[in-house]
């Protein structure tokens, strides 16, 4: 992909909602058209700003779920936090044709592109799957065969975002493994993990340290700190562990 030599300053612009799609009871994907969209890299996020009638403004960051190969539009997946200032509006109120104030794409640090190699270990807690899904979709779109493991923690199978697509990708692409842990409610006959991610689980699932995997962790702050500290304790290089915390809310 062509890289601009100087990205330039960001400013707020208006995107138009092209489509929305419920992913789970609490999450929705919102596809937007942004004028003069310059494209993004898998793992980047957007800032969204809402302005109330009295002028009060508030902004939040949301990861881009779509791969760079989905050109000229981007998809955010947003989880509704019941006490949130922004997410209830985005999930419950926003309609096709509405305009939304956006700034981005943001970030070059929490980014993975196929040329960066692997093996790849992705660790997601709840809606922390979103930027990692952009990486998995990018990997599939370019036909990469870099060995990739996703460890994905959710409360229940109903809370698993992109469940069907992940199943499909595991069947249709090479060397992609998805391991789920369901921390609160498991369906009958569930034989997978049913506890929060811990050092022992990462020891079983992460690539051996001598393979020098690239690791990306995204989820609520306590989740990310547990996973990152466990990987460091297991002997992985801190410099190859990249984290994106989305705050203390939520639980996975």
């Amino acid at each position, binding site marked *: 992909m062509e890289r601009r*030599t100087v990205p330039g300053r960001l400013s707020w612009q208006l995107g138009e909602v092209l489509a929305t799609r419920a992913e789970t009871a609490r999450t929705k994907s919102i596809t937007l058209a942004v004028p003069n969209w310059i494209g993004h890299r898998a793992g980047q996020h957007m*800032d969204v700003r809402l302005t109330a009638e009295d002028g009060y403004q508030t902004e939040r960051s949301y990861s881009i779920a779509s791969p760079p190969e989905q050109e000229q539009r981007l998809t955010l997946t947003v989880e509704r936090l019941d006490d949130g200032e922004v997410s209830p509006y985005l999930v419950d109120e926003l309609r096709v044709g509405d305009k939304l104030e956006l700034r981005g794409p943001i970030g070059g640090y*929490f980014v993975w592109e196929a040329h960066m190699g692997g093996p790849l270990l992705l660790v997601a807690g709840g809606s922390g799957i979103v930027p990692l899904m952009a990486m998995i979709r990018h990997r599939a779109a370019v036909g990469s065969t870099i060995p990739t493991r996703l460890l994905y923690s959710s409360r229940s199978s109903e809370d698993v975002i992109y469940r069907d697509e992940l199943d499909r990708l595991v069947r249709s692409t090479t060397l992609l493994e998805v391991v789920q842990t369901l921390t609160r409610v498991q369906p009958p006959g569930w034989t997978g993990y049913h506890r929060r991610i811990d050092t022992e689980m990462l020891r079983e699932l992460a690539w051996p340290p001598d393979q020098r995997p690239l690791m990306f962790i995204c989820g609520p702050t306590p989740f990310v700190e547990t996973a990152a500290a466990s990987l460091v304790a297991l002997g992985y290089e801190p410099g190859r562990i990249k984290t994106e915390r989305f705050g203390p809310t939520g639980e996975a």
Partner: protein
Amino acid sequence: MENKLDGNAAGGILQEIFPFEMTLVQASCTGCGATDAIGALAVYKHGMGTVVRCPSCDTVLIRVAHTKGRYWLDMRGVRVLQISAEA
């Protein structure tokens, strides 16, 4: 309660000010001398703005806010910024 985030969370407002992708910019801490990509630093968002801290020694590297039509940028905790001119 403080809301601990990563340097990614400061990328938006910093790139409103600087014409570079800022999470890959290397910042050296005046407190302990550690040098890291801004994306690897700790970020706290408050009503008044964004605070970037050193994950090693907790020194405040950057405070930034946008209010009343101005950017307020305090970088006294940064000894050196290394900005790649190529990416």
